[in-house]
């Protein structure tokens, strides 16, 4: 770099990294708070870095609260939603991309329409439906409710991924005598795999983070996921356990952190394929 470029680069770098740090400061603060001992937490003025690092809040969270139970519910809930949505979505998207039948284009736009529907409209009838069918207050009821936003999104993503796969290979397999489904499994699926993983990652995150349906549809500890669970567990009208809450918040973000570290590329790819390009 020339001298002039250096002089220009310094303020740009400083500004960019200052903004990045400010933006992620709440998350750094969350981690710092979760490892501070209780007496340091309520010190005025607050210490920026913990003077003594402790994991007692994590220990208390895991041993003395139903945190792990809620965590497990969230794992089951998000995994089932992801699997269901992927199976149905992959087949549906393949159909929307490669087959021609009447109403196909309209169907694709309808998928996008349903994706934009507010859950506040759907939640009350869904609540009544779950009561009627007799699966209210269960993880299954949440899986069903989550398909309302996860399936349209997955379909839309998978559709744009599959549209990018060249038809030639598939045609070649068909010429060689493969059946349509055989060609789908041997040729299309492997090529669509990155897109499928992207979709899975996205679906898992939105299901993991979902709060509104969980709030309305599940009112029992036997099925409560983490998002609503941490509140019933740690926030009462008299007392908010901040140290435990911050530890819970960190633990709750673990799957996300894992995805960020190992599957970052799939996340960005999913972004590019979602409904942003007009």
């Amino acid at each position, binding site marked *: 770099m020339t001298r002039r470029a250096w002089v220009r680069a310094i303020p740009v770098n400083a500004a960019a990294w200052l903004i990045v740090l400010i933006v992620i400061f709440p998350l750094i603060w969350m981690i710092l708070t979760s490892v501070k001992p209780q007496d340091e937490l309520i010190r005025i003025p607050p210490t920026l870095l913990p003077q003594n690092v402790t994991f007692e809040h994590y220990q208390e969270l895991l041993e003395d609260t139903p945190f792990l139970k809620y965590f497990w519910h969230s794992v089951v809930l998000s995994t089932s939603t992801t699997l269901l949505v992927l199976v149905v979505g992959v087949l549906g998207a393949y159909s929307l991309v490669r087959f021609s039948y009447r109403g196909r284009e309209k169907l694709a*736009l309808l998928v996008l329409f349903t994706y934009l529907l507010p859950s506040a409209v759907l939640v009350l009838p869904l609540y009544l439906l779950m009561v009627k069918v007799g699966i209210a207050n269960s993880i299954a009821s949440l899986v069903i*409710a989550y398909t309302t936003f996860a399936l349209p999104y997955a379909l839309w993503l998978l559709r744009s991924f599959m549209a990018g796969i060249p038809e030639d290979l598939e045609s070649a397999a068909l010429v060689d005598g493969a059946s349509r489904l055989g060609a789908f499994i041997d040729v299309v699926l492997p090529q669509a795999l990155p897109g499928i993983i992207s979709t899975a990652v996205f679906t898992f995150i939105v299901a993991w983070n979902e709060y509104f349906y969980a709030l309305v549809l599940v009112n029992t500890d036997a099925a409560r996921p983490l998002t609503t669970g941490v509140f019933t567990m740690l926030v009462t009208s008299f007392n908010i356990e901040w140290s435990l809450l911050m530890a819970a918040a960190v633990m709750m973000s673990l799957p996300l952190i894992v995805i960020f570290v190992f599957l970052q590329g799939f996340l960005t790819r999913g972004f590019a394929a979602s409904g942003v390009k007009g």
Partner: protein
Amino acid sequence: MTVVALAGRQRSPAISLQRQYGLLGVLLIAPTILIFCAVIVYPLVSAIYLSLFSIYTPTLQGHWVGLGNFQEMFSSGNFWVALRTNVIWTAGTLALQVIFGVGVALLLDQNIVFRSLARSLILFPYFVSTVVAVLVWRWMFNDVYGVLNHFLLAAHIVDMPIDWLGRMPNAMISVILIGAWKYFPFVVIAVLARLQTIPPQLYEAARIDGAGAWSRFWDVTLPQLRDVLLVVVLLRTIWDFKEFDLIYLLTGGGPLVATETLPLVVYKQAFGFNAMGMASAYSIGMLLVLLVFMYLYLSRIGRGEARA
């Protein structure tokens, strides 16, 4: 497709194969359609139906009131108050998201050190659970031990701790700011992707014509971003308008009803006032407003699809 059809003709009559393929296509989409009917079409129709009844939530018993719910909703003025709150929240947070999002995208498009790390870190607020985000912010907002008040007091910007969420207009401003913080990365990603496809020759040409940095942004970058920004604004309008979690968890709609947007009213009517019919009426009213933006977005996307 022609190759496929030709290949088929060698084995069996083309027409029956075409029909067979059509059938297979329908078969593959069938589970999707069934699920959509059960969890989207039925609830949608049912929501309209429910809005014509007066239903007591705990027993789910109700009676027909026709358009009575809507009459009460509009004449009491509550709908308009909530709609006004909703518009203020949406417009405020969206404007900040776009301005901040474009700004940060331009910065991250520069040649900075550890650029890809910066780009992934900036995404974190968007993907982190709203529950986590709200917990952290409420802890930082804490009036006694909160770090924000401490900073402001130490810097002598204020001389009394600020009540961030308990009074107006602070509560609305706080909610708008946190909404902007949470969702601006969406704008960053969309804009960054577009920035990378702007041909460098355009900037070269502008430079030769003697355009400064500001006019290059104004005359080259911004026109190129117009399309993607339009789509982003429409999408984010829809999403911000129907936001529930963030506002409900931060303020619960308070103080009083000062930050109570339409989704929060729906929830309060159904489970606070036990008036499920009335809640449905509010949800339908909200959907009608949203349909305008959904139509604009879908026709935009539909046009893009036709072009492709």
